């Protein structure tokens, strides 16, 4: 299995931290259009997006996981996953080398790599320009950068009720981290 090096904070390698600055308008003569416009079910006042916390789980590009991946912390995933990913109350970033063939549940999702599977994100999905997502998306808000490839359907959900947004407390004895239930196949390249 893979080893989490907690002695030094994991860095997202070459991928930049998720930036939420809008893409500039295409040109002076073009009509004012914001290609990075956020689409949401309602039109409430914009909320500040949670910044990506420093303590983040990290799965590097050489790691391949086949099975169920779940966790109780934010995760930066730059490897390959086949199966399902469950980070319902946390953020997930798919790095540029990420290749995901799985169903994803998360609170927030930022995609730089490739996803083939359905996505259920309670708050916000961001598809960056290098991303490719084939599958159905269910979320409250979505941001798609120019250049991103998306094939599937989008279902914008209404805002969840307050009682549904409480952080799920860890089970007794469990520790923060990412757990893997591998269906017998994990590999990494040296």
């Amino acid at each position, binding site marked *: 299995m893979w080893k989490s090096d907690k002695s030094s904070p994991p860095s997202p390698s070459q991928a930049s931290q998720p930036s939420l600055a809008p893409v500039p308008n*295409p*040109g002076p*003569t*073009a*009509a004012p*259009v914001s*290609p*990075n*416009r956020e*689409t949401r*079910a309602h039109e409430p006042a914009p909320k500040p997006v949670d910044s990506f916390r420093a303590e983040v789980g990290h799965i590097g590009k050489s790691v391949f996981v086949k099975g169920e991946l779940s966790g109780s912390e934010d995760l930066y995933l730059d490897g390959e996953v086949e199966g399902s990913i469950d980070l319902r109350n946390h953020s997930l970033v798919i790095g540029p080398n990420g290749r995901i063939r799985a169903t994803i549940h998360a609170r927030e999702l930022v995609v730089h790599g490739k996803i083939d599977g359905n996505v259920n994100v309670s708050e916000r999905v961001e598809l960056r320009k290098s991303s490719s997502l084939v599958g159905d998306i269910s979320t409250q808000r*979505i*941001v*798609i*950068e*120019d*250049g*991103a*490839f*998306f*094939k*599937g*359907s*989008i*279902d*914008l959900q209404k805002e969840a009720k307050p009682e549904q947004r409480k952080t799920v407390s860890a089970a007794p004895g469990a520790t923060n981290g990412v757990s893997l239930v591998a269906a017998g196949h994990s590999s990494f390249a040296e």
Partner: protein
Amino acid sequence: MRWFRGAGENRPKTASAAGVSQRIRRRSTGFTEFTRSLSGSKELSILDLGPTSAANISFLTGYGGRAYTEDLLRSSANADYRKKVEGSEVLDVEKFLVDNLNHPEHFFDAVLCWDVFDYLDESLVKPAAERLAQIVKPKGVLLAFFHTQDAGPDYPYSRYHIAESGALELEPTREFGLKRVFNNRHIEGLFKGFSSVKFFLARDHVREVLAVR
């Protein structure tokens, strides 16, 4: 139909090589009629066959239902759908339609084709139109654009974005080359699975077609 020789294979180029340029605003009678036919309806299922556009998704999700997007042209250029026949590479239409435009019958309330039919591989044009007739609901609408004979083979391929005002914004690229120009009779034949076809001729050599299933 009028064919263009040397329009080249439909191989998508990178954005930089494709020469992405500024957006051009364009009013569209056809699109106005399209949105008018949907007004008052809710929870619609609408399919956009153009390139992924945040603006379009934002607009279409405003109808409350699900917005579907499939970049039909780019997908058809995928090497996975090529097969060798008598030494030359052709599109495997059967395999393509297994993975694309694969939706239940009478599923969509509306479809936006933009001008994709002018750029599609010849072998896919008729099967795609037939598939669309199957997956659009009765009374559902389809909007498609066709270039007129004044457009040459170098006419740029454009990504269509729906602006907030309901107008369209074209983002010309060189990603794909114009393959053909349809005449009215060919367009009517293409949409023979639809009960009515209405034409709107625009000043920029585009024939806008609104078909009702």
